[in-house]
Structure formats: C-alpha cells, structure tokens
C-alpha cells in the first residue's frame, strides 16, 4: 500500500483532550495539588458537559467533598453529565440531577436515597441507564462506560499523588484503573496531604495513576453499616441460627462462605463458639470467609474457628482489632487492613461454598427482592454472592454435595441460602404471592423486574419453621410445596397440604427443628457467645472500639 494514500488519523484524541483540559488548570494547581478552595473552579475546567464521570459513592466511604463540590458547579458551564456510581448514598448525589448538572445515572445501590431516585425519574430529571450489581458495574467501566473523570477518596496522599486508602480501599482500585489507563482524569480527595511517600503508612494507589489530589474540608464520610448489636438478636434468630448450623453448615460441610448483613446471620456468628462447639464442628466448618469485619465474628475468631477473612471494606471501630490479627485478615506491611470490593466480590462469587442472607420478600417459587413499591434500592453485591457461577470448575465437598448424581459430566453448585422470618412485622409477610418488584417494573416500564436472587439459584430456604432443601426438588410443583411447608401462616404457607408436608419431611426434602434434633425450647439468647456490644469488646481484649452510637457506657 502506498503510504501517501493513507488518511491521517489522530489515534490519541482522548489523550489530547485530557492534556488540553489539564493545561487550562495550570495557573490554579501546585503540581498535582488542587488547593481546597479552588476545587469548584478546577471541576469546571476539568469536566465538560456530557462527560461520563465516575463518583466514589461507595458502600461505605464517600468522596463527599468532591460530590458536594460537583453539586456547586455552574450548570451553565457543566451539565448533562452521565454519572456512574457504585452507591448513591448522599443527598448531594441527587442534587446533581435536580440542578441539571447530571442527567443519566448508572448505579448499583441506592439505599437511603431510593425513594428520591424514584421521584426524580417520575419528574423526568433523571434517566437510569441500568441498575447493576457491583462487579457488573466495574466490568462495564472497561467496556462501554469508561469514565472521562474519576472523583475518588482516600485517607492520605503525598505531594506526588501516592495515595493511602488503607482499610477503606473498597472500590477505589477498580474505578481508578478504568479511568487512568484510558486517558481519563483522576482526582482524589484526601483527609491529609503529607510531603513524601515515606510519610504514608503504605502506598495503595501509585502516583502515576493519579492526576490530582485535593485536601478535603473535612474527613470523608463513612458509616458503620455492618455492626449488629447482639442485644437485638431474638430467640427466634437463635433458633434459625441453630437450624442453619445443624441442617446446612454441618450437613454439607461448608468450609468457605459469605454472610449477608442482618441479625439472622449475626446470630449464627455468635452461635459458632457455643452451639457449634457443642456439636464438635470447630475446624470442620466455616474456616474461610469473604466478609466485612463484622464485630459479631470476634468471638468465633477468638475461639479459633476462623482461618481467614477477606473484606469488601472495613467497619468503623474494628481497625485495631483487625491490625492485631494479621493471620486472619489481609493487612499491609504497615499493619492496617487492605480491603478491595472488586476482588472480594469475585472471591464471594467464585471461591466460596455458600452465600446465606436474608431479604424482604420471597415468592412461592423462591425468587427474592428487597424492592418495595416506589423505592429503587438497587442490588449492591448480594446477587454476585447469591448465584451459582457457571464459570466455576474447582470442586469442594459442599459444592459436590449439591449434585443429583455422580456422573462425571454433572456440575456441582454453590449453596445459596435465603434465611428469612416468615413475617417482616405483624402485617407484612416475607413469603408473598407476587414480589413488589414486578409492580415496580410495570410502574416504571422496566424491561426486567429488579429481582435480587432468582429462584433457579436458590438451593435452600430457611425460616423459623424449618429448612426447605430446594436443590433436591424434582419438579416445580414439589419445589413450591417445599417452600409452602416452611412458610408458616403466610398466605403461601396456609395453602399447604399437611399430608404432602409430612411426606416431604419423611423424604428429607424439608426439615423441621425436631427432624434435626433441635429442641425449640433450647433456642434462647443464653446460647449467644456475646449478648451485647460490651461483651464483644471484652472478647476482643479491648481492641474493638465501638462507635459512639453503639456504646451504652
């Protein structure tokens, strides 16, 4: 081919654009440091209307100085942004849409802001791209949602831009890599700027991935989301915990697992050193965990049950305890924990035997959802944990135990356990005829109902009535009868046929407490290894420092 005939193509438009935007900022910045008071001006230079912007609303830590600053830019200069956010947790995240600075939103989880998102959609101010699970959203950053700008948060930076994110590393590496390596602009807010890398506890993000750092006006917002006060665990939670340990953990020899957040699973954690010990299960189950550092796991760790815990994020108050147990937790050379949500989600998806968690609604087939009408709460990470990954190839005892036969071509399955009380409160059954998620999909004309965990992935449903071993079901009708057998006095449960239930119990497809040798009257709070936050602190030898809202002294 003749060289002269080849058209001239600019293969670096993204890089040129990045450099031109950064050049416009030269007079404001000091090397890579944006002065705190110049942040609004800087954002108006660095972000152009219509950009894809990833903002570190995480499950826990929040780049809230940057989100507040972004909400203060002039909508005549910056508008129509396409925001990409793992978690929409702060009021200003939605102010962006109300003021016209942003228009489109791709996200995973919204929690507290779920009602307002619904309202903004109805008002035509916010357009949802899609609702994702965490790793699904990270994955799209590397395909069709690559950001122009990333707004992130860390504890400390040096003047060159090396970042210490420490125990709260969470989503940062996943978000930053997609931006930094495709000529996006990376801005990190930190609580403190030090002179040299040697003044940082360790470097979690190297300076060459970072374009700017800015000292925040106040430390980033972070909330203890995973602390459950043992005082609020009831005798019913204890009974369900005993059922889980006896009828699932012990039966299937579950070695590695993820626990959802809730009092049900907190009860299991506190029953391991007592009830679990009395069954002689120490060292035989629950050795490896993918889990935030739940304070309720302390007694099990201290009594030698737990070999390893990898964490999505941290939990306030657990820093010193974690640092003092490096054999169990993943920590850096400096001693502090390193969390990483992307890796922990992958670990929870591919490498563990079991996910067990609760939900707000389960239908007669076993589909579950946390959506209630008008609230677009998103998914977070539960669907990643709560499904059977088709790409898994390594066997384990529990995984193989889910097989219907020993054929060399039959795959095993991850255990996905839905652990729910039959009622949320006296008027709202958990087991329902139809999920509210379907009504929501019709309301908002969504192509897909926001289902958290699909029936086809669920292997067990556990309620205070008993356990339904759904993976053994031979037909859809049998599966429905099994769920009805443990559905108590909910509308679904009332439809069950006592004779069918008796047959299911006899066949081992459904187990009530008596079938597992559990006396309901034994299920009392006395079995909990710790009954209060103070006792958790005692177990930790004073290393756990509960946040003020959990203290009663």
């Amino acid at each position, binding site marked *: 081919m003749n060289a002269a005939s080849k058209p001239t193509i600019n293969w670096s438009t993204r890089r040129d654009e990045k450099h031109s935007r950064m050049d416009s900022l030269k007079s404001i910045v000091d090397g890579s440091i944006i002065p705190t008071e110049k942040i609004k001006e800087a954002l108006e230079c660095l972000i152009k209307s219509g950009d894809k912007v990833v903002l570190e609303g995480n499950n826990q830590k929040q780049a809230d100085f940057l989100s507040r600053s972004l909400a203060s830019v002039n909508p005549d200069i910056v508008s129509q942004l396409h925001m990409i956010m793992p978690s929409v947790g702060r009021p200003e995240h939605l102010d962006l849409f109300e003021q016209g600075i942003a228009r489109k939103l791709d996200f995973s989880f919204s929690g507290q802001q779920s009602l307002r998102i619904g309202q903004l959609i109805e008002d035509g101010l916010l357009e949802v791209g899609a609702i994702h699970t965490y790793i699904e959203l990270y994955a799209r950053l590397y395909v069709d949602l690559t950001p122009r700008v990333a707004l992130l948060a860390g504890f400390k930076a040096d003047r060159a831009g090396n970042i210490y994110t420490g125990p709260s590393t969470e989503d940062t590496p996943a978000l930053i890599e997609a931006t930094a390596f495709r000529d996006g602009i990376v801005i990190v807010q930190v609580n403190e700027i030090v002179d040299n890398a040697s003044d940082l506890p360790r470097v979690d993000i190297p300076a060459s991935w970072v374009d700017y750092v800015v000292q925040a006006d106040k430390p980033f917002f972070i909330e203890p989301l995973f602390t459950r006060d043992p*005082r609020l665990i009831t005798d019913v939670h204890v009974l369900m915990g005993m059922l889980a340990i006896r009828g699932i953990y012990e039966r299937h020899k579950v070695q590695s697992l993820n626990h959802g957040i809730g009092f049900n699973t907190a009860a299991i954690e506190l029953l391991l*050193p*007592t009830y679990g*010990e009395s069954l002689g299960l*120490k060292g035989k189950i629950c050795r490896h965990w993918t889990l935030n550092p739940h304070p309720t796991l302390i*007694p099990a760790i*201290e*009594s*030698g049950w737990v070999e390893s815990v990898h964490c999505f994020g941290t939990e306030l108050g657990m820093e010193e305890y974690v640092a003092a147990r490096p054999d169990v937790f993943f920590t850096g050379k400096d001693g502090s924990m390193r969390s990483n949500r992307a890796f922990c989600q992958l670990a929870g998806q591919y490498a563990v035997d079991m996910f067990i968690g609760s939900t707000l609604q389960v239908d007669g087939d076993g589909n579950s959802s946390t959506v209630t009408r008008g609230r677009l709460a998103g998914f977070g990470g539960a669907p990643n944990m709560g499904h059977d990954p088709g790409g898994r190839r390594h066997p384990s005892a529990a995984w193989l135990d889910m097989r219907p036969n020993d054929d060399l071509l039959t795959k095993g399955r991850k255990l996905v356990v839905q652990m729910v009380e039959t009622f949320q409160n006296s008027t709202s059954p958990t087991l329902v005829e139809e999920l509210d998620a379907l009504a929501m999909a019709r309301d908002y004309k969504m192509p897909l109902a926001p289902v958290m965990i699909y029936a086809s992935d669920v292997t067990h449903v556990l309620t205070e009535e008993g356990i339904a071993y759904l993976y053994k079901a031979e037909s859809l009708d049998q599966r429905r009868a099994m769920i009805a057998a443990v559905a108590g006095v909910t509308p679904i449960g009332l439809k069950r046929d006592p004779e069918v239930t008796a047959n299911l119990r006899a066949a081992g497809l459904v187990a009530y407490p008596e079938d597992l040798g559990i006396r309901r009257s034994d299920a009392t*709070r*006395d*079995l*909990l*290894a*710790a*009954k*209060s936050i*103070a*006792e958790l602190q*005692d*177990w930790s*030898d004073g290393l756990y420092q509960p946040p*003020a*809202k959990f*203290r*009663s*002294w």
Partner: protein
Amino acid sequence: MSNSPVVKDNSFVEQSARQRIKRLLDKDTMRELISPFERVTSPWLAKQGIVSQFDDGVVIARGKIDGEETVVAAIEGSFQGGSLGEVSGAKIAGALELAVEENAKGNPMSAVLILETGGVRLQEANLGLAAIAEIQSAIISLRKYRPVIALVTGPVGCFGGMSISAALCSYIIMTREGRLGLNGPLVIEQEAGIVEYNASDRPFIWSLIGGKQRFESGLVDSYINDSQKSVREAVVDHLNRGVPSVHRTEKYCDLLEAFLHLDTQDQITPENAQQLLMEGGGHE
C-alpha cells in the same frame, strides 16, 4: 486464643429480672412471692390495647443472701420499659412492708431493689405515682432496721420517681452501663433542645448520668463491673455494713448550699458537676 470457647454467662446485666434474683440469692433459697401463676396483672393495660404480663413486669422473691433473710424486688426492663403501674408498684411496696413487719417482730430482714425503670407507667398515671409514694414511705421505715440496697446495672437505668426511691435507699450500687437521673435523656432533650442536650449522643449522656460519673460525684456508694460475682459481692459487702449512721438524703442541706453558688451561664461539664457535688457533701 485468650478466651475459653464456652458461653460467657457471667454478665449480670444480660439476665432477666427473675434470673438476676436467682443469681443474687444463696443457692436454692429463692421463693417467689405473687408469682406469674397467680396472674395478678394490670387491669389497665388491656383497656389501652397493650398486652399485659402475668407478673406485671416485677418479680418479688424471698431468700437468703450470705445466710441473711432478704426480700428482693427486680423490675423487668424489657416489659413496658420497666414502668411501674398500680400492680407492679404495689408488689414492690408490699415486699418492703413485709420486711418492715418482720423486723418489727424481731426477725431481721433486708431488702434489695434491682431497678430497671423509666418511672411511673404513663398508662396508669396517678395509681403508679401513688404506688411509688408507698414504696418511698416503706423504704424510709425499713432503712431504720436493716439496709435497703438499690442496684442500678442497666441497660434501662433508673429514672423518674424511682430515681428518688433509689436515693432514699441505704446504699446504691451501679455498673458502667447503669444510668441514674430524675428525667430521662429524651425528656431533657425535648425541654432543653437538641443543641444543649443530644439524647442520641450516647457517650455524652453516660458522661453526665452514667454509673462512673454518679460514683465519682459521690451520689452512689459502689461502682462495680458487670459480672454476677461482683454484683453479689458488693451486695453482701453493703449488707454487712449495716444501717448507715447518716443516710444520704438526710444531708440534703449541704447540697442545696452548693447549688446556691452554681453559675448556670455556661453548660456544666461532667468534671464541674463532680466537683460541685463532692463539695456539696456527696462524699462520705
């Protein structure tokens, strides 16, 4: 692995009212009076759509502590916030009056009150108030003969009219988690405003009315840890001390004197409060 992998059941705070009495009394000496089987229950709660309880949230028992005849009343904090109504209040007053009668007959009998209460049960208003007045009158009669010990371990704490009853007792024993005050934090927040007194700022609340602060201000006699062993030891110790020569409430003049000099311009700190109360004769 510093802890043994067994149930940690040595906490007193975590026990129910009935279990607390059982752990406090000498082994096999507990005899419950007006037990739930007698079904003496509040006639007022059901009328207001509230499920009543067969012991009305108060457990009364006779037994021995270190060999000494004692009557114990324990309020169950998990039933209606430990509030005292007509029946529950009368049960405590009756228990104390029983001890007064025994002492008058020459049979020494002490009393221990395990207090987890917000005070009067609002649903029973005046009848609860009257019952608390009877309790206070009985404490004053009994404390001349034998010690009446108030135990405030938390988690509810002791508030309202029953905080006055506690103050009338011969001795008060508290733990870190216990709180003692006339008005509960939420009531003060409502009156004073959240800026001055934020009831959800838990360390702040405990710094003002928690067991440690109350002990260091001289308002209570003993500050102990939460174990069943230390609760029992402290109770035995105070029973052995006998009737105090001067009761705390007989020294009220000294405190009034101190309050006259109090400048309320600035919000009082826990340290200032301690100093003022100690100067006011709170110390022994």
